[in-house]
């Protein structure tokens, strides 16, 4: 099959549990050979979407297509997909070998061939010599590998991964992220990965699907999602963002915080109300007389690589990430260059995500607490 061709399509999928709409007219196309991540908070419908693709759940309405063939009603064991479950779901009464051999045994592959395949898989996931080991005695990372081997031995066209790294500690998670990414490149098959961790999504995927309340908010490459979020929800969910109300003057000219800025966006009506996203790392702090905006530093937090500085500009608290230290109470200027500004149309999320005043409140509360002690 050609790359770029859609291997899976979901059309107008609706699912509700106990009267609560979980997926709401979801449409999604997944290209062959891609690493696609479904990203969203818990309850956004990402796992439900995965379960519909796997066949564990039938949608109330809508079609699922694999290679343009309708798959509704086809049981999981007849679909060319395999799943890595959140807690791996290894069979506790089988050892490593028997777990991996489960798929081929069900398909009645001759035992001799199975042995060869399992040995190959064990080598592939770096678990040679673990054949007879009970899966209950393996570490989280090793269990993960067994789960991967158990799935891949069936040569699925699509591998579904349901938050597979959630149970691992941070260090191991980073290693496994790289491993999974390399695995996908090596195999060239489609991975559909579910996570709530935006950093994980950005660093691993070819395509990120941002979901919220049973709908797809935005589909794009990690860079597109980060640099050109479609609305305030995506901007706020992916990374940190200063989200301001603005007005488009003309193409490439926008007004916010009482100042006119140059920007790279066009195609809006003159005078249209818009949402503005400025990423904290794209703003420079300059002496007040050079700044486009002038404000007062209200808090500084050291984050290791950089400082997170909250600057109050006319009552709106900006977050700025910089390697330079600025003292609380100082007046500073902000320089916002055209490529730092991203203009979005107003959406139902406008106004929900504002400035960082609650953020600095939290810091204040924390410092009060430490003073009390």
């Amino acid at each position, binding site marked *: 099959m050609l790359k770029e061709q859609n291997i899976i399509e979901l059309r107008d999928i609706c699912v509700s549990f106990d009267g609560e709409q979980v997926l709401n007219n979801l449409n999604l196309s997944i290209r062959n050979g891609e690493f696609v991540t479904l990203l969203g908070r818990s309850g956004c419908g990402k796992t439900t979407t995965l379960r519909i693709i796997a066949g564990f759940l039938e949608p109330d309405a809508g079609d699922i297509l694999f290679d343009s063939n309708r798959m509704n009603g086809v*049981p999981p064991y007849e679909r060319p997909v395999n799943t890595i*479950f959140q807690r791996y779901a290894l069979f506790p009464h089988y050892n490593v070998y028997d777990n991996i051999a489960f798929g081929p045994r069900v398909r009645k592959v001759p035992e001799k061939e199975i042995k060869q395949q399992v040995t190959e898989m064990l080598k592939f996931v770096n678990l040679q010599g673990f054949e007879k080991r009970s899966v209950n005695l393996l570490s989280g990372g090793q269990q993960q590998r067994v789960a991967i081997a158990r799935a891949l031995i069936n040569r699925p066209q699509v591998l579904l991964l349901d938050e597979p790294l959630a149970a691992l500690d941070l260090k191991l998670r980073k290693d496994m992220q790289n491993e999974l990414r390399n695995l996908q490149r090596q195999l060239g098959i489609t991975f559909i990965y579910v996570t709530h961790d935006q950093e994980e999504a950005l660093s691993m995927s070819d395509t990120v699907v941002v979901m919220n309340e049973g709908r797809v908010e935005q589909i794009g490459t990690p860079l597109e999602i980060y640099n050109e979020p479609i609305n305030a929800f995506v901007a706020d969910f992916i990374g940190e963002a200063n989200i301001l109300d603005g007005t488009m003057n003309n193409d490439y000219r926008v007004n916010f915080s009482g100042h006119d800025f140059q920007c790279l966006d066009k195609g809006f009506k003159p005078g249209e109300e818009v949402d503005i996203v400025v990423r904290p790392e794209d703003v420079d702090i300059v002496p007040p007389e050079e700044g486009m905006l002038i404000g007062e530093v209200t808090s500084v937090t050291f984050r290791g690589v950089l400082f997170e500085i909250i600057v109050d500009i006319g009552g709106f608290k900006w977050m700025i990430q910089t390697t330079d230290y600025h003292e609380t109470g100082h007046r500073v200027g902000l320089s916002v260059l055209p490529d730092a500004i991203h203009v979005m149309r107003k959406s139902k999320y406008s106004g929900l995500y504002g400035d960082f005043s609650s953020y600095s409140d939290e810091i204040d509360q924390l410092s009060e607490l430490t003073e009390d002690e």
Partner: protein
Amino acid sequence: MKHTNRRSLRTGLLNGPYLLWSAIFIVVPLFMIAYYAFTDSSGAFTWENIRMLTLYKETFAISLWYSLLATVITFIISFPFAYFMSRRSASAQRMMTLLIMLPMWMNLLIRTYSWMNILERNGIINNILGLIGLEPLKMIGTGGAVVLGMVYNYIPYMIIPIYTILVKMDPALLEAAEDLGASFLVKLRRIILPLSLPGILSGIIMVFVPSISTFYISQKLGGGKIMLIGDVIDRQIQTAYNYNLGASLSLVLMVFILLSMALLNRAGKDDNEDEGVMLI
């Protein structure tokens, strides 16, 4: 060193009452049974009681056959039932558990009497058959009635342990099996059954042991025609006042039950190396 001593002393004191209890109510009676089994009415040692057992070969065989039959039937009914139950909503599960336990709040005697009423020659079933012009059936006094009584009385002890295991089984395991190509039957054979083995084994023991030693069910539903080993023991002790023969029969029954439990336990361990199986 001193610390450990004090600790072991404390454990000893805490265990004391239980040890005393077990000694008085378990160990001593066991020795008494053994003593009676190997003595005659004057208290002299004898093999006679053991030799007499050969007279009851058939009774043993029938008891074994009926209790095995009851256990198998109970299992065949209970497993699908427990599985069905474990897939329902939480409130439905609570309701069903309650319904299963409800008859157990009534005394075994009353439950068995009710079955007599149902199965008797002039009982409920035959009355209904008569109403629609059919010949009455003979049910009381048949092996079927006795086995029915066993199944009816002991089925909760099979359903509950199997259900307890099935309801705790991670649904992701079943989905994983399905995902790897297993149809329902393969799933049942390779995942559900092996993983519920501990529950099945306790269920088997809890049905088989009371079934093989029952006397009340066979007396009432067997209509005096069917004698099980429990009836013989009951009669030796209550009617014939032959404590010695009663004791030797009990001893053999006990040894037999212990042996079959050990056997089952072994079978369970072979399949499930990591966890031993708790029986009873």
